[in-house]
């Protein structure tokens, strides 16, 4: 059972209740949040932009790959879009499995692949300029 969403604000309350499963002994939850520094400079805020239908489609594909590789009971991928301030969660990946090895590995796989292939873009706002992250060498 999977839940894949793009939202304007990530709500963490209720995530465990959704991920919990009577056959799952281990849940790994990764939460990515906005740091106050990047490349040694102060970040004021971030803006995330997504190609929404493709992003959801690619997240679904990653979820299906993970569910084929690991015995996943529950799987959650939620990414925020729009303006995010320091400390706000921007992405949550949650995986519930019978055993913790599988939960850790699947969660790690999903966040790593999401960062490589899901069409979402992050713009960092510094005091005097903005940067589309990863755009340039």
């Amino acid at each position, binding site marked *: 059972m999977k839940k894949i969403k793009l939202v304007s604000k990530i709500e963490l309350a209720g995530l465990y209740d959704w991920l919990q499963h009577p056959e799952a002994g281990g849940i790994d939850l990764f939460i*990515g949040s906005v740091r106050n520094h990047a490349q040694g400079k102060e970040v004021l805020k971030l803006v*995330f*932009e*997504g*190609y929404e*239908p*493709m*992003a959801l*489609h*690619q997240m679904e594909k990653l979820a299906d790959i993970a569910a084929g590789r690991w015995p996943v009971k529950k799987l959650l991928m939620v*990414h925020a879009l729009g303006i995010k301030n320091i400390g706000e969660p*921007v*992405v949550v990946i949650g995986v519930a499995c019978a055993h913790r090895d599988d939960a850790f590995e699947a969660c790690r796989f999903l*966040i790593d692949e*999401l*960062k*490589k*292939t*899901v*069409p*979402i*873009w*992050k*713009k960092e706002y510094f005091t005097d300029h903005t940067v*589309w*992250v*990863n*755009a*340039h*060498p």
Partner: protein
Amino acid sequence: MDILLFGIAREIIGDQKLRLPGDHGIDTVMGLKTWLLNNYPQMGNLNSLAIAVDQEYAQDDLKIHEGQEIALIPPVSGG
């Protein structure tokens, strides 16, 4: 043929969408990339430039045609 634009590609081109001229003669992903690099040289400075056709990453030799959903995918940075 309309191309969806996102992130820095949208800023380089300066619009939400790119409408190719009627006589563009582009029939593959590679043809589109070449056209883009010729018309917007700043695209050449990006770390990567991918094209999505109907929401899938497309190989360079894929044929493209009117009616497909085509998008320019600059380097992603979600998460």
